[in-house]
């Protein structure tokens, strides 16, 4: 990861070093074959292409090929520069000065300047979904057409890390679109592809942006950035929500690639010589969190009894049809903040200990309501098995099945009527330790402690993760926070399910990442 030093410029030298560690590319990437149209089947509808206001994965899958930001993340989730040539941090850590890359053009032919960056930050501050990342920012200005300065109220060592989060990034748009209402933003970016046609609920077609200049500072693409090259003339994202139809379309060659191959189809597709199955093993963290405000899970001993009773293998086996790995913490192995601190509390599968804890708690048989949904089978199957395991340990578990929006709303807006909420974390984990801890920290902890006041020991560790300047200190604080979260059962990571995609064999250069990238891949023959 590029290290930010005071008065040190995060130049491409450091960024490229970080990149090289992950990508190890020998020669700069060029397209072996240029041209053709690739058709890719998405598993979800794309709810618009205004990336400032949408956290949807389907939006991101398309938008990442259209828009770019000053700074983004590489394969290893380290921040790397994208539209910024470099960034320097003042001695006091309050001013971040970005120099913009020269000659970047929008899809409408206009050259990008700092005025566009200012307008983009202005719009994001008004409507951006994740505008909380700008909370420590006092203001921004453009002293000249290639310079953009962000001024912070207080020093935040992790500010660039937060700014580079690509879930809902501050993508750069033309200044004239600053006032566009949410979901009505003209789709004009600086990315390698530009929008050709968007037919809601049907397809999105993007075509190569001929004015795009790949970022020659890098050897190849990495994560959301690097040297991105559009080898294809066009890409059509077809929205095919039915998994069986999607995989059938791939098998007969109507589409070149598909998102989310169901476990039942993976072996069949892998055996087909015309297809290539790709996967990312660490993708979806299967998570549940107990409601700390509602009885009986307001009682620490009951929550600990629940944790003691659970056999994670049995749950994950049913939830993912055997397609899983257990994960002993809130980060994946290999991530900067990965630790197994508190791992002995996970996967205990000890109903007798659970019964003893229930006796200590004075548990009176009050129902434990597992709030789940059928739209995400992983969550539903998890809740089914978990309910049985809790019952076997003497708990009166019952399911409350709602559709996803209703279940999510209930978990967020109500502190009664549910005791356990099932969900999945993807970018929450992938984007790093601080992003993960934010879910359990004030002001909006997911586990709903009384008056939303989170355990002081956890909050102290969380603050240290955010403010400590030395990485080792932040890692140590993260480990303390993780242990405390597991001891008090704020959220429980049950295991990880992979992301599995498949493409036709003539699609080359395709790899599974958190989102579907259409650069640096080509169609052979």
């Amino acid at each position, binding site marked *: 990861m590029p290290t930010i030093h005071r008065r040190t410029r995060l130049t491409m030298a450091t960024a490229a070093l970080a990149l090289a560690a992950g990508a190890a590319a020998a020669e700069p990437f060029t397209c072996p074959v240029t041209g053709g149209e690739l058709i890719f089947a998405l598993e979800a509808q794309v709810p618009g292409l205004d990336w400032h206001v949408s*956290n949807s*994965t389907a939006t991101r899958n398309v938008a990442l090929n259209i828009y770019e930001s000053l700074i983004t993340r590489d394969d290893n989730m380290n921040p790397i520069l994208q539209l910024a040539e470099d960034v320097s941090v003042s001695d006091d850590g309050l001013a971040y000065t970005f120099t913009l890359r020269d000659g970047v053009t929008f899809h409408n032919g206009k050259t990008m300047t700092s005025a566009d960056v200012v307008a983009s930050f202005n719009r994001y501050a008004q409507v951006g979904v994740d505008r909380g990342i700008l909370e420590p920012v006092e203001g921004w200005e453009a002293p000249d057409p290639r310079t953009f300065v962000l001024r912070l109220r207080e020093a935040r060592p992790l500010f660039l890390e937060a700014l580079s989060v690509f879930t809902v990034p501050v993508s750069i748009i033309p200044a004239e679109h600053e006032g566009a209402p949410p979901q009505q933003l003209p789709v004009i970016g600086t990315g390698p592809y530009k929008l050709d046609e968007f037919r809601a609920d049907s397809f999105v077609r993007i075509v190569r942006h001929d004015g795009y200049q790949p970022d020659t500072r890098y050897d190849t693409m990495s994560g959301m950035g690097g040297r991105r090259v559009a080898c294809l003339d066009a890409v059509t994202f077809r929205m095919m929500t*039915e998994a*069986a139809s999607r995989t059938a379309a791939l098998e007969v060659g109507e589409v070149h690639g598909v998102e989310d191959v169901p476990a039942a189809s993976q072996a069949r597709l892998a055996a087909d010589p015309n297809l290539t199955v790709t996967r990312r093993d660490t993708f979806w963290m299967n998570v549940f969190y107990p409601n700390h405000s509602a009885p009986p899970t307001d009682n620490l001993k009951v929550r600990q009894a629940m944790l003691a009773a659970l056999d994670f293998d049995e749950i994950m086996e049913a939830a993912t049809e055997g397609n899983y790995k257990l994960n002993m913490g809130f980060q994946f192995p290999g991530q900067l903040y990965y630790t197994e601190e508190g791992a002995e509390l996970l996967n205990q599968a000890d109903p007798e200990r659970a019964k003893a804890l229930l006796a200590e708690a004075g548990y009176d048989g009050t129902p434990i309501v597992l709030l789940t949904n059928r739209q995400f089978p992983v969550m539903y199957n998890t809740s089914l098995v978990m309910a049985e395991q809790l019952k076997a340990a003497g708990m009166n578990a019952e399911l409350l099945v709602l559709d996803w929006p209703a279940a999510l*709303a209930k978990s967020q807006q109500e502190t009664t009527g549910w005791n356990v909420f099932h969900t*999945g974390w993807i970018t929450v984990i992938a984007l790093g330790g601080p992003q993960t801890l934010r879910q359990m920290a004030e002001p909006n902890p997911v586990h709903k402690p009384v008056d939303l006041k989170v355990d002081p020991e956890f909050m102290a560790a969380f603050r240290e993760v955010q403010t400590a300047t030395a990485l080792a200190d932040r890692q140590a604080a993260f480990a303390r926070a993780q242990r405390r979260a597991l001891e008090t059962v704020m959220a429980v990571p049950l295991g990880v399910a992979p992301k599995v995609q498949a493409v036709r064999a003539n699609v080359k250069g395709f790899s599974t990442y958190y989102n579907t990238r259409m650069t640096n891949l080509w169609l052979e023959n």
Partner: protein
Amino acid sequence: MAAYALRRLLQSIPLLLLVSLIAFGLMKLVPGDPAMVMGGPNATADEIDAIRRNLGLDRPFWVQLGAFYWNLAQGDLGRSLLLGQPVGAAIVERLPATISIALYSMGLTLVFGLSIGIVAALRHNTIVDQAAMVIALLGVSLPNFWVGLVLIVLFSVQLGWLPTGGYVAFGDDPVGWLRSATLPAVSLALLQIGLLARITRSAMLEVLRQDYIRTARAKGLSEWKVVGKHAFANVRIPVVTVIGLIFSVLLSGSVIVETVFSVPGMGALLGNAILRRDYPLIQGGLLFVAAALMLINLLVDILYAWCDPRVRIGGDAR
């Protein structure tokens, strides 16, 4: 006739307003909103709140309802929260797919449903009758998502004759339309064929027992004339009623069939709108479907007069 039609149309306005009010109220009572859907499983509470403010969902119920009716009075169904396009445009965009597949499916239903029903009645209590009713029963019983997937496996994956999904507009490529619309139309039609065949059979059986049929036969008329002219003329009323109902169902689209075949039609539009809590789209879509159903009902009433001269539009009967 024209005055009757106009009166029926005017009478439908309060009903449509009521439909929109119920749709608006019901959706507000159900937990969850579009912000939850846009945010997805990974969104934080802050992010959800930000999206909600952006979409104007933090405004009071009455303000949102008032805005909806104010726009409606100006012929504006509002703007879809998640599609980012006017509701009217979203509906118009999807109508060709739904209408063309509905008509195709209706054609299959009429041809096969009526034929099977009539043949079964004429060969009452024979193996032909039993075979026809087994076919009808299968059509009614098999879930259309299953039928759709089986058709995909058979005709797309195994035989490679037809595409697995998608929709090609008739105006762009008539052959492409026929290829893309066949499997969805067949999936939709199977259920309706079963229904129509059973209704036609029972209506025909009743008519075939009537004295005037016996008289027609005694007069030496050909079986074709007896059935085609005298018997079928008297089963048109119940059959037209059922056809009206079937077409209403087909026109409002099928979420399942459109999802299986990735057809961007009204069913998928409304189904997704409900799942996403896209209030303007739900209200506008339901309003449109309700209006279409009322028009079809009106058409069916007018057809009654054509089918049976004893029926007089406007309430007079001979």
